[in-house]
């Protein structure tokens, strides 16, 4: 393993971004009393429950709108490179959709909200998806995909 040398700015920006995320999940909890789990909110728009759908749709819409704003203000943050073949993104999407529903959460619901509550389920879930992410990228590297 080698370590990328980070400039102070490369450490401060993620900290600021993280703090903004912490504020946003606090905002949702304070205002409407919900945990900000993106996969859970999205799941409730794919399979709507009466009386519990519109706020979810509004949340799902808020993300790309933020993306449009950031593409103007800080284009570098939105210059997503997608070097893999399209079928890789298709498979990755299916795994992310299926896995987050089965595991009741993703990076936001478990990784941020759950860990902040010290929820044992979220701590285990986060360790599992981190480990699987490390293993997958290590495997891709072995196979020459990186």
């Amino acid at each position, binding site marked *: 393993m080698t370590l990328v040398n980070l400039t102070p700015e490369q450490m401060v920006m993620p900290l600021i971004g993280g*703090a903004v*995320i912490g504020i946003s999940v606090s905002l949702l909890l304070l205002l409407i009393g919900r945990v900000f789990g993106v996969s859970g909110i999205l799941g409730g728009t794919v399979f709507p429950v009466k009386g519990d759908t519109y706020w979810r749709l509004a949340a799902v819409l808020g993300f790309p709108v933020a*993306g449009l704003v950031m593409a103007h203000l800080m284009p570098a943050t939105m210059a*997503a490179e997608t070097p893999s073949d399209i079928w890789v*993104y298709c498979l990755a999407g299916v795994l992310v959709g299926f896995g987050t*529903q089965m*595991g009741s959460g993703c990076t936001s619901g478990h990784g941020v909200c759950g860990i*902040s509550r010290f929820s044992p389920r979220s701590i285990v*879930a986060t360790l599992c998806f981190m480990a699987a992410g490390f293993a997958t990228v290590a495997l891709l590297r072995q196979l020459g995909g*990186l």
Partner: protein
Amino acid sequence: MKIIIAAFLSAFVFGIGLALGGMTLPSKVIGFLDITGNWDPSLAFVMVGAISVHAVTYRLIMKRPSPILSAKFLVPTRRDIDAKLVVGSIIFGAGWGLGGFCPGPALVALATGQAKVLVFVAAMCGGIVLHRVYAKLTAP
């Protein structure tokens, strides 16, 4: 209506945070997961930043009897570790490592209009449907 605006606003702020933190760049995410190669630990700071803020605000907010715009807090209370939690999270992690997107950043990256991002998000919704089918088939 207020609840809808609140949800939109929170997600908007969330999306800004994800972009500022670098989570919207799949190459950055894969660099963070690449511990056997050239490891870029910067995204760990996103997690640290988010948890340090919310670990404090969560406890302050939960002192209130109810949220501002709705009747009660709906926070998960389960504490049991089951196979679904573990297996589901592993499947999610594999997809995250493969594409470099988790759900929030993928939705933000829709703004780039890239076909591969659209495919990822559509496939993610497909995965949600697939899970519903699987859950029905395996229900006792």
